[in-house]
């Protein structure tokens, strides 16, 4: 996918900052909170970022998702070499296997739709022990949830949407478990934020080497 190396990124949104919540996600939360305060609980706050893939076709969106799944699969693969405790090692294996299955399914689906699956970029992960592994895991899983939620409304095919839904639910489950392991609340918000393509790319850009 060409957009992964797109220059038109917004570095200041680079979002691997506050426990996986990008600045933009904070803004969305702010909007939600304001809505709650003023009693205007409506749908508009949810959709602020929900057209992540605006202008992208289903194959582009699937390739975008594939890139994120490559990232997650590689992350867990490498994390398992860190000498994790037994509970975390089990989770790293289980979650890593799931991400690899997502990679395989997305790849096959892109081919089936007549597209060309993107190749995996090379990644680099700032982690050296279980603590930094779990911290990054939370960031990646939470970002994954918001990326799929953002792309969902732009998907044209009902079938692709249903498939993306079955994946995002797994990402959300992963995120919740990682959060619990870190002593964090599993569901920090009543409504998960969505991120658009640029925001997601900005968030993962520091992890992409080539």
């Amino acid at each position, binding site marked *: 996918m060409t957009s992964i190396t797109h220059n038109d990124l917004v570095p200041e949104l680079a979002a691997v900052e506050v426990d996986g919540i990008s600045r933009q996600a904070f803004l969305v939360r702010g909007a939600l909170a304001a809505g709650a305060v003023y009693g205007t609980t409506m749908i508009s706050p*949810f959709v602020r970022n929900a*057209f992540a893939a605006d202008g992208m076709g289903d194959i582009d969106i699937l390739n975008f998702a594939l890139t994120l799944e490559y990232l997650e699969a590689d992350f867990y693969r490498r994390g398992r070499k860190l000498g994790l405790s037994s509970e975390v090692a089990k989770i790293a294996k289980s979650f890593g296997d799931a991400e690899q299955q997502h990679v395989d399914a997305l790849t096959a689906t892109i081919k089936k739709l007549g597209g060309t699956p993107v190749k995996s970029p090379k990644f680099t992960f700032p982690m050296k022990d279980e603590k930094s592994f779990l911290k990054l895991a939370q960031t990646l899983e939470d970002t994954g949830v918001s990326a799929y939620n953002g792309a969902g409304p732009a998907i044209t095919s009902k079938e692709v949407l249903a498939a993306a839904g*079955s994946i995002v639910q797994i990402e959300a489950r992963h995120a919740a478990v990682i959060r619990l392991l870190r002593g964090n609340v599993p569901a920090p918000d009543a409504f998960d934020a969505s991120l658009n393509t640029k925001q997601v790319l900005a968030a993962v850009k520091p992890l992409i080497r080539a």
Partner: protein
Amino acid sequence: MPDTRTPNTIPSDDASRRRFLTLAGGGGVAAASAFLAACGSSKKTASTTAASTAASTTTTKANVDGDIAILNYALTLEHLEADFYAKVIASGLLKGAEQDFAKRVGDTERQHVEAIAATVTKLGGTPVAAPKSKFPLESRLAVLNLAATVENLGAAAYLGKAAEIKSPEVLAAALSIHSVEARHAAALNKLLGKSPTPDGAFAKAATEADVLAAVKPFIVS
């Protein structure tokens, strides 16, 4: 906001992928192949018919009515969840971190109720009233198991409806709730020592008929 710590139990035992939900749709099709099969007709779909567009921007009355019906279905489930947690909290069966967790989740479900009801109204519909509910709350374990059942069911219900939603805005809202229900489900599964991902790498959807049948025992009227 302080973190709610729930006791950690060994969660990720995918070998024991027991489905404690008896949702239908649980045919033994391998998830990945189901994924592909589901995408089988998409090539044609993507390039041609607008009829199968998931997030069509057309706002015909039929589309709006369809979305209102889906939202009211979701609202019924959210009412039940909110009610469930209110009763759990009142029962005093949960203590400490678990009670805090129930309060937090209950508060979230109430926010879902409010948001969905407001959305139905905004679309010109009438939000369904809360059903009268009853839940067998007998012990801590019964409560936690029922909570897990309800949350896993809720996640599967949203997943089952996502592709039928016409308005991108409504879809975005539903997705933002769907993943929260999934988080709740995974946390409760973990708390109970069950796999947080009982369906494996691809979550299964539940049909409306199956979901309504599953919650029927909890509805008095």
